[in-house]
């Protein structure tokens, strides 16, 4: 029973938690967190089962209500969706463990609705990844976006404004996507992705379908925060509570990335895209610009969360570049970077959360060597995360860059290669700036070594997820070939 329904169980368990939390934890608020944690852990477990099943059995289709597509809605478990769900759920689980203390500290009287909304967001993410239906994807997109607006709005004084701007942008994105879906439906008469994938390649002369592709990619591009559409991201990540930014930054934009990969390569197909629009070229150029632009702006930031936000813009650029290269190495690099960036950003945002809890701020100029003395493990995790962002082997960050570099060379795009490499240096600039601060005594002015005895290592529930992520960065880097050959090479879409 569990096995036959396993594709749907991850989003369903999360949705169940989202429903049960307001009912059960209405009076007993402390129950909210355990329920959320259980649901998230269950979803992660199911994702593992799903991945194993997909790798051994091939693609699994799950028909809701027993209705056969294209009439019914189906969930499709293929290597790509199984892999991305696992990444999303596993990272969220770790961040959720970490979030308990920071939510208790930052949102003491709103923890119950907060966890419910988090569960709703994760439901949305899982749904987006798993669904095989265009309209269903829209619904989940909006469910997750609504949850995101709420999660951002409970931050500091400025957060509602950030959330409002995100809401306007996000709604425009969602509406563009929906309009695209309308065009697709009008042209093909179907909403099922597999069904459209059969029809679309023959229709690349149809302007309506080409418009649909463009609209969908722009719409999803806003949600993914790809370069000129990234305006909402920095404020949203900065002003949101630590727990929210740590949950949203690693996985939020990735879901948009996933949807774009799905739409471009699996539904419309490489041939369609090549014949109709210079879409992949545009994506690649925007990605390359984003890489440089995001990195440069990250250098200028004082607040660590804002720095990480701009670095996210750059990192999403990597993924966009990989997609835009539209060759196997590019896709491998992009999909691997989805995982890598999720891990790196989660690790770094958790560190920022630890700083916020223990120091009360995460402003870079105010950090000093006491941080390293009192919080050695957190600092160690930050170092690993930073090295991975710079792309030092054997951390994961190096390997996605390696595949992306191979992709650029295969297409003979030397400028993109240069952008990739230059951004590594820029990353080094802004991360070593922080590392210098935390590892060395301030040059001018003597900071008393003791005094602030309250400063200590973060509590175990926050430290362990941070360290797990740090170790994962190293181990997955060393064993990335297992993932690449076992999973990601099977993702490379047909027609490449």
């Amino acid at each position: 029973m569990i096995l036959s329904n396993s594709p749907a169980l991850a989003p369903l368990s999360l949705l169940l938690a989202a429903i049960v939390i307001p009912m059960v934890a209405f009076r007993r608020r402390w129950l909210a967190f355990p329920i959320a944690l259980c649901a998230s852990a269950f979803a992660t477990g199911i994702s593992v089962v799903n991945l194993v099943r997909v790798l051994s059995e091939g693609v699994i289709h799950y028909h809701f209500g027993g209705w056969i597509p294209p009439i019914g809605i189906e969930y499709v478990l293929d290597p790509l969706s199984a892999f991305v769900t696992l990444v999303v759920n596993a990272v969220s689980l770790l961040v959720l463990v970490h979030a308990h203390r920071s939510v208790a500290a930052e949102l003491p009287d709103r923890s119950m609705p907060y966890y419910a909304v988090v569960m709703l967001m994760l439901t949305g993410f899982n749904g987006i990844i798993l669904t095989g239906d265009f309209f269903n994807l829209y619904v989940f997109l909006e469910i997750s976006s609504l949850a995101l607006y709420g999660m951002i709005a409970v931050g500091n004084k400025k957060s509602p404004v950030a959330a409002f701007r995100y809401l306007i942008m996000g709604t425009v994105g969602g509406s563009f996507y929906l309009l695209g879906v309308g065009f697709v439906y009008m042209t093909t008469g179907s909403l099922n992705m597999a069904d459209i994938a059969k029809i679309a390649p023959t229709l690349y002369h149809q302007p309506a379908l080409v418009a649909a592709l463009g609209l969908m990619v722009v719409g999803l591009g806003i949600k993914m925060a790809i370069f000129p559409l990234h305006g909402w991201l920095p404020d949203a990540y900065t002003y949101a509570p630590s727990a929210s930014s740590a949950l949203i930054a690693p996985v939020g934009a990735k879901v948009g990335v996933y949807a774009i990969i799905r739409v471009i390569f699996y539904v419309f197909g490489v041939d369609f895209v090549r014949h109709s629009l210079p879409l992949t070229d545009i994506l690649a150029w925007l990605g390359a610009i984003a890489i440089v632009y995001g990195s440069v702006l990250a250098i200028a930031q004082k607040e660590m969360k804002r720095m990480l936000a701009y670095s996210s813009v750059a990192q999403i650029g990597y993924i966009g570049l990989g997609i835009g290269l539209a060759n196997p190495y590019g896709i491998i690099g992009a999909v691997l970077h989805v995982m890598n960036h999720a891990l790196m950003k989660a690790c770094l945002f958790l560190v920022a959360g630890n700083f916020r809890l223990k120091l009360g701020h995460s402003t870079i100029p105010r950090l000093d060597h006491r941080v390293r003395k009192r919080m050695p493990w957190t600092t160690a995790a930050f170092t690993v995360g930073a090295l991975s962002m710079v792309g030092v082997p054997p951390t994961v960050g190096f390997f996605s860059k390696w595949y992306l570099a191979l992709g650029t060379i295969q297409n003979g795009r030397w400028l993109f290669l240069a952008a990739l490499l230059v951004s590594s240096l820029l990353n080094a600039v802004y991360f070593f700036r922080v590392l210098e601060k935390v590892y060395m005594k301030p040059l001018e002015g003597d900071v008393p070594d003791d005094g602030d005895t309250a400063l200590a290592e973060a509590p175990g529930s926050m430290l362990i997820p941070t360290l797990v992520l740090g170790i994962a960065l190293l181990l997955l880097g060393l064993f990335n070939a297992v993932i690449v050959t076992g999973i990601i090479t099977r993702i490379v879409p047909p027609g490449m």
Partner: protein
Amino acid sequence: MLDFFIGHYAYWFVFILMAIGLYGMTVKCNLVKKLIGMTIFQVSIILFFVASANKWGATVPVLDHSAGSIDPTKYINPLPHTLMLTAIVVGVATLGVALALVITIYNRYQTLDETRLLEHMRKDDDSE
């Protein structure tokens, strides 16, 4: 050419609405006006779907056994309508959240004018 314009008049209205919505969202400074623009934008897309479902000479998609036949050309395509039902719900939910945000923003800054809001925020940044 004229046929093209007249034949698709519903869609032209949709696009005009969409343009109005986008204009409201981007140009207006007042947050509530932005929201109104957003709603117009969403509604235009809903209308687009509904218009696409239309067939001349067809009726509501309720099976009429007395008519004797279930000829699909006799019924309007029900699918876009059901889809739009969901889209409306999504729109309402978004609007609810947005209004809640607007109220919070007003409570905190006593203004809904975007330029003034940004000034306030910059002041906050400086004071931090």
